[in-house]
């Protein structure tokens, strides 16, 4: 069954015709051409596909596409600032060596953003809770946790 849906993607209204069985990741990576969101397992186990829907970090590989109707979706592409500048979250990952192969990075950053959007002073445990669903095979997570801590500090200073 085909269906037309409209939602907000990274601040812009989009309308796409979808097959009802598709998941959010399929329309992001397919018709919308947003390949920053990576598919690592398609079972909701690795978190590489994490995006934010109405403020919540979700696995876009399990999230039914038709359910984003009228909702606000933010992907890694939505974080970048004008004039080719990285956001605080992204820059913190770069600065702290939190990136190796980079496949988990967009999902990891989206989980971190979902946390810091609602909790400006996260404890280390809260950071670990927020990243629990995001697997990384390269880094051992040490520099990722450091990067999220740093992003939290910088966001506070910005305000």
């Amino acid at each position: 069954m085909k269906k037309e849906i409209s939602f907000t993607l990274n601040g812009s209204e989009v309308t796409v015709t979808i097959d009802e069985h598709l998941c959010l990741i399929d329309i992001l990576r397919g018709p919308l051409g947003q390949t920053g969101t990576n598919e690592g397992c398609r079972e909701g186990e690795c978190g590489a596909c994490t995006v934010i829907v109405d403020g919540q970090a979700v696995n876009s590989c399990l999230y039914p596409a038709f359910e984003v109707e009228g909702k606000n979706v933010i992907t890694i592409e939505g974080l970048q600032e004008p004039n080719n500048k990285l956001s605080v979250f992204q820059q913190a990952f770069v600065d702290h060596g939190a990136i190796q192969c980079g496949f988990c990075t967009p999902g990891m950053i989206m989980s971190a953003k979902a946390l810091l959007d609602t909790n400006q002073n996260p404890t280390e445990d809260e950071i670990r809770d927020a990243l629990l669903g995001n697997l990384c095979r390269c880094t051992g997570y040490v520099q990722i946790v450091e990067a999220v801590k740093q992003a939290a500090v910088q966001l506070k200073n910005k305000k």
Partner: protein
Amino acid sequence: MTNFHYIGKEASRPDGPDKAAGKAVYIQDLQRPGMLYGKIKFSDFPHARIKHIDTSKAERLTGVRAVITATNTPEIRLGFLRDNFALKKDKVRQYRDEIAAVAAIDPEIAEEAIELIKVEYEPLPGLFSPHEAMKEGAPLVHERDPQGNSRTDNLVPLQFHHESGDLEAGKRAAKHVVEGTFTTPMVQQCCMGTAGCIAEFDMNSNLTVWAKTQIPFLAQRDFNRALSDMGLAGKNARVIVPTLGGGFGSGLDTHCYEYIAILLAFRTGYPVKIVYTRAEEFANLSPRQSSTTKIIQGCDQNGKLTFRHVEVLQDNGAYTSWGATYPSVMMMPATSLYRISNVYFNAQLVYTNNTYCQAMRGYGNPEFTWALESNLDELAEEAGIDPFDFRMLNSNKPNETTPMGLKISTCGLKECLETVAQKLNWKKRYKKGKHRGKGLASLIHVGGGARIYRSDASGLILKLDDFGNVNVYHGGVEMGQGLHSVLTMAVAEALGVSSKRVLINPTDTGTCPWDVGTHASRGAFMACNAAILAANKLRDKIFGLAEVFYPQEVEKNLKKLKKKNPNYKPPDFDVIKAARRENFELQDGFIFIKDGPQESWLRLELARLLRAIHFRNQGQMFTTEVFYDPPNELPDFKKGFGNISATYAFGTQGAEVEVDTETGEVKILKMVAAHDVGKVLNPQALKGQMYGAIAQGIGYAFYEELLSKQGKILNPNFRDYKIPRVYEMNFPIELEFIESNDKFGPFGAKGVAEPGLVPTAPAIANAIYDAIGVRIHDLPITPDKVLAALKKLKQTKD
């Protein structure tokens, strides 16, 4: 000590911003015009004759462009022993054997088509352990060898053997002897980005493959051989490496799916993409081999090791990959970790109907060091010597040659041991009953390339442009480990330009010079050594031509300056006389005269000098090519002798654990890792490598195991195959780097990619023994095994 501008300083990786922005292009993201999607029909049995394949329904499905089997395509052989086939014709030898494949206009149709393929089999008895496969009268996995000769057993025809000294004399000299058998499971590389490729032919029948590979040039060779098998002899395969979502050894071979994509692309005339799903990756991509190691070591009354006897048995699975040469690496610690004479080492690999195995980070070393370092602790206890003192007593030293003929140049093992002991507060041990303990384990690994092939070399091209950019072409593969990060620094440092001016080009066999592959912790060692050679060649040429052009250009600077500032009095300095090649220095993109006046007009921008030399009659440009081949030897593995690497990396890890004797759960309180890295090139990248390796070591120690029943993978997903999450890595890790400044290393550095996971599991097992007095012999150390061992201990005591 040289004063470095870049080397040793924290630097973020050049591909970091794109990766953080989601702009890195992985194989999953790549599209080509007209691209079709390939899908593979895998076997339904672990061992069976193929009676009939019916592809008619699949062929009729709308959107299907081709269906191929072994009967309608040329035979393509592959593998380290050429015992594997891209598509299987007469029989299947493992569940993942490729029987047929389709190309369709979208992945869903391709999948649907695969389900329409019907195969009739005649099941054969299967062999699912090397022990079974070695029994007399066992069915044969391969009835014939690749040359067509009849086979009579399931042994893989590869020999890895070493004997040195006098084993019997070593045994006689031993006061204490301990024997043990240790096993390790199959584990998966678990790259976050699954495997895949795109194959595309142009109308001259030359092929381009975008491949998730660590060996672009050996892949080119393999694919060219396949082209020849396809009747396209003389045509070329160009291999381009997209951003890799991890490697960890999984890209050390060419794979059946790549040849299938090539066959489908040729058949259809369109590019064909095959990307594995996660379930396919777990079930159909070769994992790390399982191993059984029997080890006996002895020491004299003072604790000096007198002999070591090692027998390794490995389950090869159905076909042979490069990973079958794991024992070539196992032999290294077996003969050379700690000072030892009188060594016996033998390894056997056996064909079974399990999934065939391949390389994974450490390449035999984690498997063997698990046995060696666990057994060494047992021997220390038997001899009544503290495990730390025991290791110090037997530690390797610089400038020694080991029984395998390894020439140890620098060796920081003692410093590593001491550092870990100090950081673990080693001499202060927990009281009995606390269930807390400390353990140590060390490692040796290749740190200066590893000659397991005729050439261990690495080529590199530096091309300067009119803007002062340095374009780098290198055949090594950035798979996340940070190769391009340190290569950028090495070029900037050695040439004397800003690191921002160093631009590394994508790895492409069409543009980059040959490199054997990114494995054996050799990437940074080779690339940076090549960069230094190339930079020196370029500097020589620049400084030679600067004798003429530097004075001309700085004269223009001076004129400009005088025009602006008529009162300026230049220092009494004869530029033309000073402009001799030996007097020049290039730093941060400016050329100037060493020990000359510090006037700004005497500092000439490199780009300007390059343009002055380029834009004139008979102008010149600067491109230089080098081929660095390290001073190491291809060992004779049948005799177990040869200096495989130019230098060797050492390290020690320590663990402090607490064991819950009710549940069998082990909690890590702290990990300490001290590694002799030669020289720290980029602290941030190095720490990342180590943390990541330790995490893999933690997974290996505690829960990773690819479970297989009758050849079928039982846990092909991250729910049932657990890798460490941020939750499990919630303990302090202290890293210390020992800089032994190796003379063969670039800026003194050794390869460090693999060592970090090699001693992790035995360090933890030794800590568990210290905590509760039980010795686990079989990885992974699950709570069930801990409880069973505790129960057994209690029974023995009662």
